[in-house]
């Protein structure tokens, strides 16, 4: 069983949902980024999505665009991100997902990426701009399936396509809560619930919902219907506003604790 499955099983036994945290790797610097991640893990983060900074993040809103730009200014590359994962693996047990646009992986080489990511201790990859129509060129070069391929399902994804997308995914499904880029506001929990139920009938994979989730209330609302809640821009906003703050790691840990508390509302499964 891989770390993702293990984690969801553990959460089910505890009656909890997953708190999935997205961070741009290396923001504001590699060392501080590692320090922040360790603090967030200690505070109860369930799954880490580590973003590979990209020059042209077309699916991201201003907050993650800026975090990506800060990381790039510090010289962070896919190489750096894999090194960070290897460093984190020494003391962190939670699943780590590489969250990336396709071009850095393409240029790195799909097979080399697979081998280096698995060796570093990554558990999955989500390539934002690589739909099922194009992903064979990447997975076709993977020698085995030790890396889960997390896929996106959007509010615009029609029924028949949900099956197609889910059918080629592994690990979990990342459900985009709303149309628009990351960090946009206007989460509609009722609509999300309806969508989650529809996707459930198409797959047995855990469903994590992200985009526009920032407050403990948002997390609580999503946690009642989905298997996991993804928070990204809200974390990046704290980093951006506290770059000079020595207590940044503590602040991030506190945020994780307050959000994580909202995922413990469900009854333990038997």
């Amino acid at each position, binding site marked *: 069983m891989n770390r993702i499955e293990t984690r969801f099983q553990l959460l089910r036994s505890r009656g909890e949902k997953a708190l999935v945290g997205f961070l741009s790797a290396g923001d504001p610097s590699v060392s501080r980024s590692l320090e922040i991640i360790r603090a967030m893990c200690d505070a109860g983060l369930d799954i880490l999505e580590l973003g590979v900074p*990209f*020059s*042209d*993040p*077309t*699916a*991201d*809103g201003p907050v993650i*665009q800026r975090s990506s730009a800060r990381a*790039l200014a510090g010289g962070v*590359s*896919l*190489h750096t991100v894999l090194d960070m994962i290897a460093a984190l693996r020494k003391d962190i047990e939670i699943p780590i997902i590489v969250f990336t*646009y*396709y*071009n*850095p*992986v*393409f*240029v*790195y080489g799909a097979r080399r990426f697979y081998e280096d990511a698995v060796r570093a201790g990554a558990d999955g990859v989500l390539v*934002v*701009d*690589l*739909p099922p*129509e*194009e992903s064979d060129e990447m997975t076709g070069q993977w020698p085995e399936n030790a890396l889960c391929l997390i*896929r*996106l*399902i*959007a*509010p*615009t*994804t*029609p029924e028949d*396509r949900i099956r197609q*997308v889910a059918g080629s995914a592994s690990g979990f499904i990342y459900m*985009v809560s709303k*149309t*628009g*880029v990351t960090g*946009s506001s206007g989460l509609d929990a009722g609509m999300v619930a309806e969508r989650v139920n529809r996707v459930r009938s198409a797959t047995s994979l855990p469903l994590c919902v992200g985009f526009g989730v920032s407050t403990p209330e948002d997390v609580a609302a999503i946690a009642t219907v989905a298997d996991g809640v993804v928070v990204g821009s809200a974390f990046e906003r704290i980093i951006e506003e506290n770059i000079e703050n020595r207590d940044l790691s503590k602040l991030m840990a506190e945020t994780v604790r307050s959000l994580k508390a909202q995922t413990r509302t469900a009854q333990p499964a038997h």
Partner: protein
Amino acid sequence: MTCPENDLFPDAKGHYGVYGGRYVAETLMPALLELERAYKTIAQTPQFASELGVLLRDYAGRPTPLFYAQRLSERLNGARIFLKREDLTHTGAHKINNTLGQALLSQKMGKKKLIAETGAGQHGVATATCAALFGMQCRIFMGREDIRRQAPNVLRMKLLGAEVISVDSGTGTLKDAMNEALRYWVDSVQDTFYVIGSVAGPHPYPLMVRDFQRIIGVEARAQILEKTGKLPNRLIACVGGGSNAMGLFHPFLDDPVEMIGVEAAGRGIETGFHAATLGAGSVGILHGSKSYVLQDQNGQIQEAHSISAGLDYPGVGPEHALLKDSGRVRYVSATDEQAMEAFGMLCRMEGIIPALESAHALAFAVSEAPRSSKDHVFLVNLSGRGDKDLGHVSEIIDQTNTPLSR
């Protein structure tokens, strides 16, 4: 030299060999599939062709003339140069051929709003024009730097009722405008049609834009046969994203005609400040398709540099990548300085002020014509007029103390 298999591209998934495709986030995939269906079922009917034909004739002013640039040719004392006068279309560039097609399609799909990215502003103006013509809402995304370089076009778009959105991210040029248009589209995809202005972007855009621009080559081919009784020796067109070049080249692909795409070499390829994507780039993925891009060793897209906002783009259409690899089209480049020189020469020798983009194609023709025999014919796509560039040109003249005439 001929290449009859070119009609086979793209394949069913929008690939041109290894290039092209649909590298977009899931939110946009259904919209692209819907657009592809609509393009096949609506835009490829005789009724659509006839409606578009009327608009192209009565509104855009087609066919555009093919003009023999006699004084320029005689001065260069070599090949005879013919200019395909896309600058004479309504709105002043070839862009209108495509925007009329896409706007008509958007109408038939029941979309209410148009968005577009623009670099030089010609595509933005052409989109805003169609929005006004069809009574649609219109938002144009334009880089901050381009808004400065192309002020007259910004005013034109506003007069036409479009909202011009300044894009500050990145270098504030075409690449960033396209990023922002894609972000906006992700949020508005249900009622908004994204009018992409070049043969770039995800499938079916490279195909659709090529097909709407093919009219340039179809007309030019008939016109040159009528005027000279033979096919031209060379076709020459500038290449940024590559829509005017693709429109001219495509109908000639099976003919024994040499084709040359001229990219912007900016301050010189060796300086690193250029936009010669095919000449100096490598294979990568940008804005939804795989093609050549300017990038670093980590796959981060690099800034392009050109005097011409329309060529200032670190990507290029996927079909151009295929045509480069197959050797069917030769891609060369012209520097800012060479383009400025050709710009001035056409103004004085023929009384035509070309767009700075088109001046790159002219620069190649000007340098090669003297080395070619007098019975050779060069057909140059004069893709747009230069009025939009006057402010920018005036700055350059002041900075470099270039005399206005010599």
